[in-house]
């Protein structure tokens, strides 16, 4: 059992007429399985790029970042990558350099998480941690 501490900071001096600047943190207890920081070249077929397998309802925390690199490692500032639930259910799109962090559990539907490049293969970075507790 380990403790994972994620912290998010959002700030903007001009999104509102008042300055936005806040941080929020959490303490998460994790167990096996976990996947350390890894990279994958995501192509345009989501089923080829499953990064979290169907997990039978285990609470899992997922970090994903678009590295801004193409499949060959060269800089790519144009091609996006969709974050999907397996079965091609698109949730959101990461543009080069962007990241996300969210909890995931299949909730009895035997679902996982997959990546699907929108136009051309891109290099993505990801990691996940589970608390191995049925939800």
């Amino acid at each position, binding site marked *: 059992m*380990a*403790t*994972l*501490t*994620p*912290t*998010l*900071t*959002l*700030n*903007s001096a*001009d*999104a*509102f007429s008042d300055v*936005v600047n806040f941080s*929020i943190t*959490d303490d*998460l207890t*994790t167990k096996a399985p*976990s996947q*350390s*920081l890894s990279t994958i070249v995501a192509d*345009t077929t989501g089923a080829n790029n499953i990064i979290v397998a169907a997990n039978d309802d285990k*609470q*899992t925390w997922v*970090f994903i*970042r678009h590295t801004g690199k193409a499949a060959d490692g060269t800089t790519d*500032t144009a091609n*996006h990558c*969709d*974050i999907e*639930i397996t*079965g091609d*259910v*698109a*949730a*959101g*799109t*990461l*543009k*080069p*350099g*962007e*990241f*996300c*962090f*969210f*909890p*995931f*559990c299949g*909730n009895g*539907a035997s*679902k996982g998480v997959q990546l*699907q*490049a*929108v*136009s051309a293969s891109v290099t993505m970075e990801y*990691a996940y*941690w589970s608390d191995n507790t049925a*939800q």
Partner: protein
Amino acid sequence: MATTTASVSISSGDLIPGSNLSINASSTLMKAGLTTGLTQVESGVISLALDTDSKLGPLATEMSGDVHDIASWLYICNKATDDTHYMDFGIHNTNMGRLYAGDWMFIPWNASDDDAAIEVEAKIAAQTIEYAFFNSNFILTADAG
């Protein structure tokens, strides 16, 4: 043009023996072209009734056609203090995950069609959540399918 910066750090001192985990990432939230900052923001605190499916924000229901497919970001924090309380969230009528008391998430959101609303539902008891949407009116590249 607004400039909004999001940063995350994920750390652990005991996940892997002898190796501290320290992940750090930061990005400026941009419209689809990556050169202009997102311009629309909605934030607030709302109460979720127990076992009642709610769609977050006016963006979930007021957009139509291609206007859906824009660069959007969503932050949610479950402000519950009882460890057993949680809220489910999902998209396309598919449950994605759950936020327990004090947990937060930060995700991109493609409101690609009328079924792509972010849905939230309090479990065990009514709960209060804090949320913020950042989005643009700039349509994303079409999905590869």
